């Protein structure tokens, strides 16, 4: 690890003010940041520890939703009775991610901000536009089995690794932030993540010094909630493809549906047209195929990850068929 100074934040505003300085990083759970610091992928000069700030509560909101403090641990969020009862897709997604030890440490805000697990991003001897802008992308012509098929650019084909964020995308979550001037902001999760484009090093719409304080969930939409994760091992592996689905149906007829995908792109992937194709549609193969066509519109494989296209289609079929039966 490169040398850094360490300070414990006294308030959120103080942490945000400190984080404006280039080279300063906020540390919460630290499970991804310290991993990257050991490899010198991240080399902050100053660390600001926010773990002692009072941002670890889950509260009911007046509209019947939930407000999740940024320091709520992944394991606590997954186990919260309100989340299990009303936002099962979120609980399932959290439990599908990482290991119990990591979930005990990892936080809500940190999970949203975790970095890609692209092998070349992690290997500082290889070119990577995300780690070292302008150096090139070793993944495009390299081993790219785990990489993106949607929303890619000539600069970057990395995926976002979070399961939690995929469920939050389906739930229309909002990200609350504060900056060094103590100004607060609410960012819909659909506008939170960016595609790589020409600046893959910029992953979110957060400005320097802007800190996540909470994630709010609106009241749950009607329907059954499912999180399906397809991966190389039965446990403790990142998704090749994952689907967060909320489907409202009766007797083989779908009324409405929400679909968000993980493992396919630089951000959780949601396609409005795919969901529209499921509105008031019969739950049959033709409908599922039409939805899958919309999801995969513009998809492009890079050799090693071509299989993700049929895998996405089949996973979506399986999930929708199962949900329409219940």
């Amino acid at each position: 690890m490169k040398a850094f100074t360490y300070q414990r934040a006294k308030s959120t505003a103080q942490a945000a003010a400190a984080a404006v300085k280039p080279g300063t990083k906020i540390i919460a759970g630290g499970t991804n940041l310290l991993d990257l610091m050991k490899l010198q992928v991240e080399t902050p000069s100053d660390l600001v520890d926010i773990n002692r700030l009072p941002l670890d509560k889950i509260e009911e909101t007046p509209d019947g939703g939930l407000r999740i403090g940024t320091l709520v641990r992944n394991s606590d969020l997954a186990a919260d009775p309100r989340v299990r009862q009303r936002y099962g897709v979120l609980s399932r997604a959290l439990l599908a991610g990482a290991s119990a030890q990591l979930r005990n440490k990892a936080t809500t805000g940190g999970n949203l901000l975790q970095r890609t697990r692209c092998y070349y991003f992690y290997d500082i001897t290889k070119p990577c536009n995300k780690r070292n802008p302008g150096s090139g992308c070793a993944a495009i012509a390299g081993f790219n089995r785990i990489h993106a098929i949607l929303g890619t650019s000539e600069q970057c084909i990395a995926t976002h690794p979070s399961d939690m964020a995929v469920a939050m995308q389906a739930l229309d979550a909002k990200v609350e932030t504060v900056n060094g001037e103590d100004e607060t902001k609410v960012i819909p999760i659909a506008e939170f993540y960016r595609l790589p484009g020409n600046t893959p090093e910029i992953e979110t719409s957060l400005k320097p010094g802007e800190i996540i304080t909470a994630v709010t969930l609106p009241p749950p939409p009607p329907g059954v909630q499912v999180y399906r994760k397809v991966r190389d091992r039965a446990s403790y592996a990142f998704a090749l493809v994952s689907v967060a689905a909320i489907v409202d149906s009766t007797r083989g007829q779908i009324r409405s549906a929400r679909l968000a995908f993980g493992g396919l792109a630089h951000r959780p992937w949601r396609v409005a047209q795919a969901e529209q194709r499921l509105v008031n549609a019969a739950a049959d193969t033709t409908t599922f195929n039409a939805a899958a066509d919309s999801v995969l519109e513009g998809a492009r494989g890079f050799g090693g990850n071509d299989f993700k296209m049929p895998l996405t289609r089949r996973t979506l079929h399986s999930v929708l068929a199962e949900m329409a039966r219940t």
Partner: protein
Amino acid sequence: MDDHESNREPDAPIRLEVNRRTVIETGTTALLLAALPRTAVAADSVKNNKLPPPPVSVEFQINGRSHSLTVDPRTTLLDALREHLALTGSKKGCDHGQCGACTVLIEGRRINSCLTLAVMHDGQSVTTIEGLGQSENLHPLQTSFVVHDGFQCGYCTSGQICSAIGMLAESRSGMPSYVTEDLTKPAAELTDAEIRERMSGNICRCAAYPNIVAAIKQAAGMLT
């Protein structure tokens, strides 16, 4: 730090005269401890044209005893335990949170001690394998691992046992897992599938998994 080190070219190779005899005479740990941190700090301070960051103080309860340390802020909890406090029961496997050999309990909850800084745990209580039982008075989980032969080389075992203690507490408090059928019910029965899923953060390269599951299952019955 002495002048000789601070004047060294940043990219010059670090020469370590290591042979079989010096390793035997001094012990690998002592040799590496003496050589590595100082040269690493020297290289950084040369490159950044500044002194290394000031050391930080941390005080925590480890296995019921209070310990005060002054460490480089980079020191992970695992390195603080092993290198500063000689508690070498917690093992360094991958050092990246993938294998679980370093699992310890913070305030009763299991975490990977390699992926957290010692200074972040100021004022907290830490339980390691050394705090669970002694050779003549084993913790029920330790006994169960012996009875069921829940290991081969033993390197992952202290992490497995600390993790199992945290896992049983999570299970008793009603925490669900990925394989829990019904999330809306308070507690899931600890089936083999539940134990395997909940213990998936602890890798055993000898693949003693069937015996580890059996050991945990038996101990779970004894501990409830």
